[in-house]
């Protein structure tokens, strides 16, 4: 294996790694606020790419991107307000246990619905989004390996999303309130934090971020109505792989898995790329159920009591 091939593999690993990382970040936003796994996260990515595709025909690309993010964010908020919130309220009356499992099953249903809606709107064919700079053939060459300038857009966006979320959770009042809800919903309510508004907000944020990732990556990977399920599974894999709930772990696990996957092609056939990552996840789950970088739940609770 020559050095430029190695660099090529690392680059393709970085592309997929940043997509995975951003989806996993979206999972974590919702998980932190509600304790549920939002299986529709991959569909937000798909919607982002699709809406950018449609709007880029009638307006400039930056505007189309903004529209895609806003529309998907509204869809995310709408899903929470109309569906998720109701089930929480109903379930609280009927169930003895917490309704998280039911809500997670519901998001599976929602993801099917979003996908089928996309199928009716955009059809079965693969859709494209214009490149942000240059076109399909333009490339940047570094150390003998060449790659599309879009790659820089993708990695920068992933990095900015990660920075934004870290800043948001740490320093803004809203972010701190969301973290408080994740820690203890009752405690947050007592402090006067409107916990259910925070949940809605978390869906809006997760949907917006997912859509942004979708429209930035669409020029390179193209988009198709059915990509969401695979992305959701991969994003969930990454989120659990790193340790559910932590942004840093999700980002690190995303890049790690992306690079491992792209190098797995050296040993295994291309079709088995996903098997490698899932097997790794299963091994991690069995050995460290709290994820690769996650702290065990008991310890985390102990720390937060200090």
């Amino acid at each position: 294996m020559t050095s430029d091939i190695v660099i090529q593999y690392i680059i393709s690993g970085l592309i997929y790694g940043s997509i995975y990382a951003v989806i996993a970040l979206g999972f974590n936003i919702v998980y932190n606020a509600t304790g549920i796994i939002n299986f529709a996260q991959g569909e937000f990515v798909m919607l982002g790419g699709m809406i950018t595709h449609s709007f880029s025909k009638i307006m400039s690309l930056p505007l189309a991107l903004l529209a895609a993010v806003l529309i998907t964010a509204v869809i995310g908020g709408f899903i929470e307000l109309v569906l998720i919130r109701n089930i929480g309220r109903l379930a609280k009356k009927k169930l003895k246990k917490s309704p998280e499992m039911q809500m997670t099953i519901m998001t599976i249903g929602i993801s099917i619905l979003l996908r089928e809606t996309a199928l009716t709107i955009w059809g079965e064919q693969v859709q494209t989004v214009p490149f942000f700079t240059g076109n399909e053939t333009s490339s940047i060459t570094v150390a003998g390996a060449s790659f599309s300038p879009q790659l820089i857009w993708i990695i920068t966006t992933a990095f900015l999303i990660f920075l934004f979320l870290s800043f948001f959770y740490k320093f803004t009042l809203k972010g701190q309130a969301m973290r408080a809800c994740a820690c203890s919903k009752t405690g947050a309510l007592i402090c006067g934090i409107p916990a259910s508004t925070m949940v809605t907000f978390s869906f809006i944020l997760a949907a917006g971020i997912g859509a942004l990732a979708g429209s930035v990556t669409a020029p390179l990977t193209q988009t198709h109505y059915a990509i969401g399920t695979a992305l959701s599974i991969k994003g969930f894999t990454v989120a659990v792989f790193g340790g559910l709930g932590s942004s840093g772990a999700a980002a690190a696990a995303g890049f790690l898995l992306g690079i491992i996957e792209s190098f797995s092609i050296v040993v295994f056939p291309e079709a088995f790329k996903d098997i490698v990552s899932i097997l790794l996840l299963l091994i991690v789950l069995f050995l460290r159920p709290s994820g690769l970088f996650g702290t065990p739940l008991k310890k985390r609770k102990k720390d937060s009591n200090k």
Partner: protein
Amino acid sequence: MKKYTSLIIFLGLAVLIPLITSLSGKNFYLTQLTMSAYYALAALGLCLLLGYAGQISLGQAGFFAIGGYTSAIMSSAGLDPRLAFIVAIISAALIAFVIGIPVLKLKGHYLAMATLGFGVIIEKLVRGIPSLGGADGISNVPDFPLFGSICITGGRAARLSNYIISFTLLALALFLLTNLLSSRSGRALRAIHESEDAASAMGVNTARTKLITFIIAAVCAAAAGSFLTHYNGSIGPGEAAPLKSIRYLSIVAVGGISNVAGTLAAGIILNFLSLRGVFGVYDDAVFGVILVAVMMLAPEGFKLSIPSWISKRFVQRKSKT
């Protein structure tokens, strides 16, 4: 006798259906009903696991494919289909055993993810291995001789006999599950569903009970896969897709989650409508709507099941007189 009410109702309907179809001249419905019966068998296994043991599995389609593909390969290679069936069941049970030990230690989302991961691995394997036919799957699978000249086959002449075979098998599964659920193990399962710690404190070996249930669910799916493969004469990687597992989940959900008879009814009706193409292009969307609606309206499953409803009325009338 009361616990067999649903079984008796099921048998009654099973006899009634071919009479109706032959009277109305729509005998071709029996083909889809036979296929639905096998899909319902796979859903029954999941019902036991999810509704009674409280363990979610998104890998049911994976076991279905293991059963179907093992049968298809073995019997296409010239092995007696009956022997191939036994190999399929044993390999599904063994895989469930090996996977189940680590997986069932996980809870909630992690369990869902691990079983979903298993399903995805099986799907990628059957798609990726050239000798399994890739995207085309395996076709020309030989018939499954049961006894004498009766065999599981998709031929037109054997339509009624295959309908009878499939519904007999389903009735047998229902009978076995009903007995299991009203036995000591069934009570242990319900105890685990309520609270694993409490069940463990009462002396239930929770790990073992969960593992056995997981294996039973896998065997149900593998048997269904094997039968359906022989009936259709073919199997494709679509049967292993995660979306199929989700479909089984929505069938169990609409059937009432902890309700074997409900799952059976939902499995037959929904699959029949889907196979008949009633939902058209919205086939998948229907199952999505079902999942959302059931989780919203009855997160613990519909409590109203036909047998208990009838028996309740019966008891009330008795007390009045």
